[in-house]
């Protein structure tokens, strides 16, 4: 069932400088034809993905490599439907879970348990469903009593455990993970690997951006190299 199809996808995004973000400046510009303002707000447009086409189907686990700013995260966000391409078409089938930024969706003042509910609801689960997953999440994270403590006391490795446990317990058909996955300790990486392998083996899609060749080799059967918004499949 799970399927991702990119057809000639181009994603551009605007970068607004200080002046372009100011309504006052913009109004003065409109009102005076741009004569009064010294620094007219420039809007930079960045082409993050340039005519990208590929297809992923069940059982594919894809590694994304490329230098900083090559467009790995943008590609993940476009797959997730967070960014809309300005041209081309993105078609995805299957339930998507994302782990892109560490701590995204968590409220640092609330406890681990309360945040499990938050994340679960965000991923579209019902409260009772999240409740039923709690034991397995407790087990996977091994955070013990820390789950009672506010999340602001967690280290980044602990945050990663929590996010990974919730995002994968939803049985996603497509799992998109960005590079900060490396923050977990050895025990966690082994557990995560086991869970990832079960996701991959149950014929789902896994996409993983990383700078670590080691991790990519371990998890992925296909590798794309991104360079200035274009992709090239490495075999």
């Amino acid at each position, binding site marked *: 069932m799970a399927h991702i199809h990119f057809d000639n996808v181009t994603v551009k995004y605007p970068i607004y400088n200080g002046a372009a973000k100011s309504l*006052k400046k913009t109004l003065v510009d409109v009102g005076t034809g741009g004569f009064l303002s010294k620094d007219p707000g420039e809007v930079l447009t960045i082409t993050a993905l340039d005519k990208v086409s590929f297809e992923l189907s069940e059982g594919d686990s894809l590694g994304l490599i490329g230098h900083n700013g090559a467009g790995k995260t943008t590609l993940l966000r476009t797959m997730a439907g*967070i960014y809309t391409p300005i041209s081309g078409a993105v078609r995805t089938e299957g339930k*998507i879970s*994302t782990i892109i930024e560490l701590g*995204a969706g968590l*409220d640092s003042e*609330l406890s681990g348990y309360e945040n499990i509910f938050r994340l679960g609801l965000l991923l579209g689960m019902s409260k009772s469903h999240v409740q039923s997953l709690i034991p397995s999440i407790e087990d996977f994270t091994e955070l013990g009593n820390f789950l009672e403590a506010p999340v602001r006391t967690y280290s980044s490795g602990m945050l990663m455990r929590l996010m990974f446990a919730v995002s994968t317990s939803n049985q996603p058909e497509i799992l998109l993970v960005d590079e900060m996955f490396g923050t977990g300790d050895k025990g966690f990486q082994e557990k995560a690997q086991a869970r990832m392998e079960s996701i991959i083996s149950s014929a789902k899609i896994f996409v993983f951006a990383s700078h670590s060749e080691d991790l990519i080799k371990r998890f992925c059967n296909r590798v794309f190299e991104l360079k200035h918004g274009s992709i090239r499949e490495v075999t």
Partner: protein
Amino acid sequence: MKAAEVPGFLGAQRQAFRDGFSDIAQGLQRLSMAFFFAWGDTKARYRRSVLGPFWMVLSTAVSVAGLGFLWSMLLKDDPIKLVPSLTVGLVVWQFISGCILEAPTVFSRNAHFIRNIKIPFFIFPMQLVMRQLINFGHNAVVVLVVVIYFAPTLHLNQLLVIPGLLLVLGNLCWIIVLIAMLGSRFRDFEQIIGAVMPLMFFLSPVIYRPSQLSFGQQIVWLNPFSYFITLIRDPISGNVPPIFVYQVAIVALLVGTVFTVYQFGKQRKNISFWV
């Protein structure tokens, strides 16, 4: 040439409406989640205090007592008339201004959701309204106490507070979405709103009632907040709000919603780049 462009233009408009509606519909389906989040926000905010959200109730009670005393002397008004109307006015004003003041940052504060999880954006304005409603519910304790103490009359007209509240909520929803979009595109919009709202407090009939003005009653009705306050305050004191207040509020709700849904659908895909 031109004839070929027209259907395309209309098609784009229809698409914008469809996008806006589908986001709002998906958002409404997850109403309970928005409530859960709003409740979590409230809990998180008062986590390390003894009274919790009742700090807010206490501060409302103190300002009602202080302002009621001061303004009944300044306005030479009977406290029995002034204090209940002032209380309702203040509590409603806190609700409305809370919604409007936070609206410009509603998307940028939730940027970590918007950039990481595919989610209907309408959830965030809903969450803001819910959180303010939770505060409003707490403050309603003060209203209840004051009304029972000063004017314990039950009247059928008081039921009109329900349609009044619904009209205010509906209108606030589109206003918040509109302000939120402007606020995420233009970062100084928050400052503009922050500068205007304190002034609006004095221009709105919070402390006084429109009928108390010897002149300029028409000017009061140019202020949208006057309608919101009247829709809730008049029924609580057992009066029926003037019919034109309902007419204006309903027309604003329809026109505002249609306009906002269109703009929301058109700009929706840019919001994840703006925040």
